């Protein structure tokens, strides 16, 4: 509650123009984050056209080429080459596709399972609630990384497994939030009315509870996108992420990390910047959505 402006200007004339909506202010419409996300999506879709080289083919002869502006670099490989001589720019472009696909599908998987179980446990309560809650507790003790290594060991790492792992690990967070929402929704009049009107619990869940929970699910999705991408990168660092030679930002960072100490900074800085931009934008969008859709959303 800011109080009235200082005494001499106590009388504020309406005419004074309200402060211009500065773009960089976070409260305002997150234009930049959305632009970044759209740009990454476009790059992901048109990767085949945009990428100058095949991202998986390289030759040892031209490895560790620096970006073109550094001496030793050439405009043929704008952002330099990696430890196997592959063009970094092409790998970043294709990497966008992998990160987007892995990120979005994993969030959908996590969201799907989480929302479903969240609604079921929240609405039905009783044993269903207990089972789901006990599951989420146990799942919390089984960290993502352990999970990933297990699955990678059983079935061998592949893009699909990574999506499965990330989905399986993060549905618990979804379930908790959605369950909280459903619990408070249940007390609301319109739900009681629906019960009194004799709707079956299935229709109530489908037509009344679900639409109201979608908001939080969408908001959670944007926030989860960031977490999923970063976890994928950590999995690659441990060697159980998306398998080489597929170009994924996380894997490029992990492979390139040795370069940090050696001066080949671009191997890990460029993918790092891409991940940061994408995750930051997703989070800022998520925050804005959260305020727009449901300011009271506390559990996030």
């Amino acid at each position, binding site marked *: *509650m800011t*109080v*009235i402006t*200082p*005494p001499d200007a*106590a009388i*504020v004339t*309406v005419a004074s123009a*309200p402060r211009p909506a500065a773009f960089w202010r976070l409260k305002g419409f997150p234009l930049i984050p959305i632009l970044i996300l759209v740009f990454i999506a476009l790059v992901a879709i048109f990767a085949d056209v945009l990428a100058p080289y095949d991202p998986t083919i390289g030759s040892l002869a031209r490895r560790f080429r620096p970006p073109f502006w550094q001496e030793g670099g050439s405009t043929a490989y704008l952002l330099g080459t990696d430890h196997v001589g592959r063009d970094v720019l092409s790998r970043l472009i294709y990497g966008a596709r992998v990160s987007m696909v892995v990120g979005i599908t994993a969030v959908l998987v996590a969201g799907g399972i989480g929302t479903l179980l969240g609604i079921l446990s929240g609405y039905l309560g009783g044993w269903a609630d207990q089972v789901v809650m006990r599951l989420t507790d146990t799942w919390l003790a089984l960290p993502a990384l352990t999970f990933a290594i297990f699955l990678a060991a059983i079935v061998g790492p592949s893009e699909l497994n990574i999506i499965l792992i990330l989905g399986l690990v993060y549905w618990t967070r979804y379930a908790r939030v959605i369950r909280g929402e459903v619990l408070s929704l249940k007390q609301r009049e319109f739900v009681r009315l629906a019960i009194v009107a004799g709707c079956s619990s299935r229709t109530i869940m489908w037509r009344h509870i679900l639409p109201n929970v979608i908001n939080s699910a969408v908001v959670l999705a944007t926030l989860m996108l960031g977490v999923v991408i970063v976890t994928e990168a950590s999995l690659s660092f441990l060697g159980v992420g998306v398998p080489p030679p597929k170009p994924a930002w996380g894997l490029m960072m992990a492979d390139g990390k040795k370069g940090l100490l050696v001066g080949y900074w671009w191997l890990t800085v460029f993918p790092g910047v891409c991940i940061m931009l994408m995750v930051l934008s997703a989070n800022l969008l998520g925050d804005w959505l959260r305020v727009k859709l449901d300011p009271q959303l506390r559990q996030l």
Partner: protein
Amino acid sequence: MAGQTLLSLEHLSAHYVSQQGTRVVRAVDDVTISLGAGETLGIVGESGSGKTTLALTMMRLLPPAARIVAGRMMFEGEDLLKKSDEEMRKVRGKRIAMILQDPMASLNPLFSIGNQVAEPIRVHEGAASRTAWQRAIQLLKSVRIASPDTRVSQFPHEMSGGMRQRIVGAIGISCEPRLLIADEPTTSLDLTIQAQYLNLLRDLQREHGLALIFITHNLGIVAKMCDQLAVMYAGRVVEQGPVSRIFNAPTHPYTKALLGSIPRMTDGGERLTAIDGQPPDLSNLPAGCAFAPRCPAVTTRCRVEAPPEFVTEPGRSARCWLAEPMALRSSAA
């Protein structure tokens, strides 16, 4: 009982300005009210008529989107609008206090009653916590709370609604304010507790020489408690004056309708007069008198030109063309 004027608002206006500056809501518009020390003023009106905004304007605690755009607020000879934030803060709670509507939520659940009652004393009078604690116990006694020395260290959730409202009242008077504004203090209390609380407020007023402003939509309370009355509609004071004069001979059609809608024992079988139509949308008020669309005695002039506030008797005025013939002089100054 006209003590010397304690508070006088002159042509006070406070508007809400939307983000882009396009929509302006005239929540409080050209209000002129005065109140003597020890007097009780009732402010009545439908919800959304600007009663609470007026109260917050007096405390200069408007939400960020609101701004005071015109007028003066003279309190004990000083214009509150001229005060800096820091000076105004010192006035709040010390010389002007306010009580809120919902006693259940007005007290912080995590702190003891004593702590919250003693707080204004510690802050405003810099009293040591020991003495402040004792004063708190005295205050609880003065608001008729049983066994105050045990209650003082208890927590809000251990109190009933009525007791909590009395504690809020105790907080209000803790620093001997000159004016206490009560924003619908009894709405959430049931009737029996309500009557007790009103008597308590009257006793406090008499003991401490308090001026009271009652914000309510319950005309019964106004009849029982208030000397003066101001009826607000769409952000404007449409009629004000002594309670007895207005209750017997209301000038403004809205006041008549309000008084007509109270069931009285003596009425026999007549139907209650209801006011048709919807409360006005403050962001785009019609030209002319805001009450025109719902006014039974509406004339073409009402729809075109907004009536000024006509002073029909000393200390009494109405903002309606019907009052023009009785006007002593135009108060359009």
